[in-house]
């Protein structure tokens, strides 16, 4: 039965891609953008760009107002208590690096940082490198066969020496929700700071950072149908106070002398240089658009498509799905077929999926794989997209076998 997406027409690029015979199934890498975002960017650039938090002139005041309104919208989207708990960065990766550098002074040799075995490089490497700089121990929480952090083992491994727990909410390779409530509660009881990488999780469903009870929550705009170049770092007020300033220059300064300076508190103190103003305004417009949708309808649509994807993969001989995906995506390998070959043939047929290690090399290596194919869904996908993918997959396999 055909399952249309009621929101497909809101994303003009989907039709453009279709005219080029491209079926876009790589939304976990980046998403297509709603018309509302295109309009907001065009309006901002068409009506007078200006720098924010500096100028006394009217364009500057308008840009600053629009920029700060976006901060309110992000705070509302995450249910943060106050807008000043939202720091804009240049992406999720830079938000995580800000945390790793901004918290570094607190840690001593021999202390521990816990991450999971399924982290994206963005939530692994900043902590790995921090551990190396400070002679700390990086503790890797193992993942079970379903692709979820093994809670029993994790609760043993997170102890009084753990200073930071940094984990993904939804795996970008396995499509599994991680058992955050138990992990975060335990880590906090042990006195550790908790960091949630919401890059994938934020795209599916609404998440309440206060309910989640994490110290920091990070996501990137471009995976949430917004522009690139913008990341978000949410922090609990007490946690934000712990952050040391990291990058210097621009309006993060309070007073500057040749030999010393003082800096603003969060959020502006952590937004050095000119921020991605249009991008932040665009993210605000995207959130308005997303907030206008029927959240339950979106959830049902995504969940039905995801089931369709999993059923189709299960129906095919030799296809092995990694873990037990619960949302948004599925990664798979095919017995006796190199994933580069199947990726090549899917590309030839206009199917845009991702092949490779998905920026999680240690995870793939741990599974004994060089790579995998990942199909990921956005709210604009419909069942025809999946049908085209399956037909292309069958054709490709027939050729290779």
């Amino acid at each position, binding site marked *: 039965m055909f399952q249309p997406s009621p929101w497909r027409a809101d994303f003009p690029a989907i039709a453009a891609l279709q005219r080029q015979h491209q079926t876009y199934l790589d939304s976990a890498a980046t998403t297509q953008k709603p018309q509302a975002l295109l309009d907001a960017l065009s309006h901002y650039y068409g009506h007078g760009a200006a720098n924010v938090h500096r100028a006394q002139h009217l364009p500057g005041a308008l840009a600053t107002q629009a920029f700060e309104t976006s901060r309110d919208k992000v705070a509302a989207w995450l249910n943060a208590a106050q807008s000043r708990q939202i720091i804009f960065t240049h992406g999720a990766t830079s938000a995580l690096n800000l945390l790793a550098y901004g918290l570094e002074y607190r840690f001593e040799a021999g202390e521990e940082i816990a991450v999971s075995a399924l982290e994206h490089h963005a939530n692994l490497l900043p902590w790995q490198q921090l551990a190396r700089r400070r002679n700390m121990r990086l503790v890797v929480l193992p993942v079970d066969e379903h692709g979820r952090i093994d809670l029993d083992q994790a609760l043993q491994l997170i102890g009084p020496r753990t200073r930071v727990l940094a984990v993904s909410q939804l795996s970008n390779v396995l499509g599994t929700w991680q058992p955050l409530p138990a992990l975060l509660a335990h880590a906090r009881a042990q006195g550790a700071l908790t960091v949630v990488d919401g890059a994938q999780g934020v795209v599916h469903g609404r998440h309440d950072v206060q309910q989640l009870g994490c110290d920091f929550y990070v996501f990137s705009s471009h995976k949430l149908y917004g522009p690139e170049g913008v990341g978000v770092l949410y922090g609990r007020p007490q946690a934000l106070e712990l952050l040391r300033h990291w990058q210097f220059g621009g309006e993060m300064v309070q007073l500057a002398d040749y030999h010393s300076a003082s800096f603003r508190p969060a959020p502006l103190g952590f937004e050095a240089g000119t921020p991605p103003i249009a991008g932040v305004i665009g993210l605000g417009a995207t959130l308005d658009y997303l907030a206008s949708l029927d959240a339950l309808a979106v959830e049902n649509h995504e969940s039905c498509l995801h089931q369709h994807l999993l059923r189709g993969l299960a129906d095919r001989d030799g296809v092995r799905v990694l873990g037990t995906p619960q949302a948004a995506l599925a990664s798979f390998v095919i017995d006796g077929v*190199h994933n*580069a*070959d199947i990726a*090549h043939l899917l590309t030839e*047929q206009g199917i845009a999926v991702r092949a*490779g290690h998905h920026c999680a090399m240690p995870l793939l290596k741990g599974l004994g794989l060089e*790579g995998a194919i990942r199909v990921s869904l956005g709210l604009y996908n419909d069942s025809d997209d999946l049908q085209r993918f399956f037909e292309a997959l069958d*054709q490709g396999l027939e*050729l*290779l076998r």
Partner: protein
Amino acid sequence: MSLPAAAQEALDSFEQARGWEQRARLLMQMGDRLEPLSDEQKAERNRVHGCESVVWLVAEQHEGQWRFKAGSDARLLRGLLALLLMRVQGLDSAELAGLDLREWFTQLGLERQLSPSRSNGLHAVLLRMAELVSVS
């Protein structure tokens, strides 16, 4: 500069190929004809990095002429490697430096395989080849 005979033959086949399926079949046939590498040649020093697939490239020079061998665990990439080698085999450094390999793959209708964003690694292989040739 006229094409080596094997390359001319491959070009004729690709020019006649219709659609992605025929091109893919041809690529696989080409790949099957690639001379296999010895275990000794499949060494880390011959690995081409920057590919999602495992690729080896061995370059040797005999009396000024280059002899390349290449291999991969991915079939279609083996085909691309075979097409590359048949174009460059036996050239000297000056000839290689003057050769536009992008042009060669464009003639074959495979120019998209050369994009730096492609994870298949042909782009990385060309960079590696240029590096090997330039240092000797």
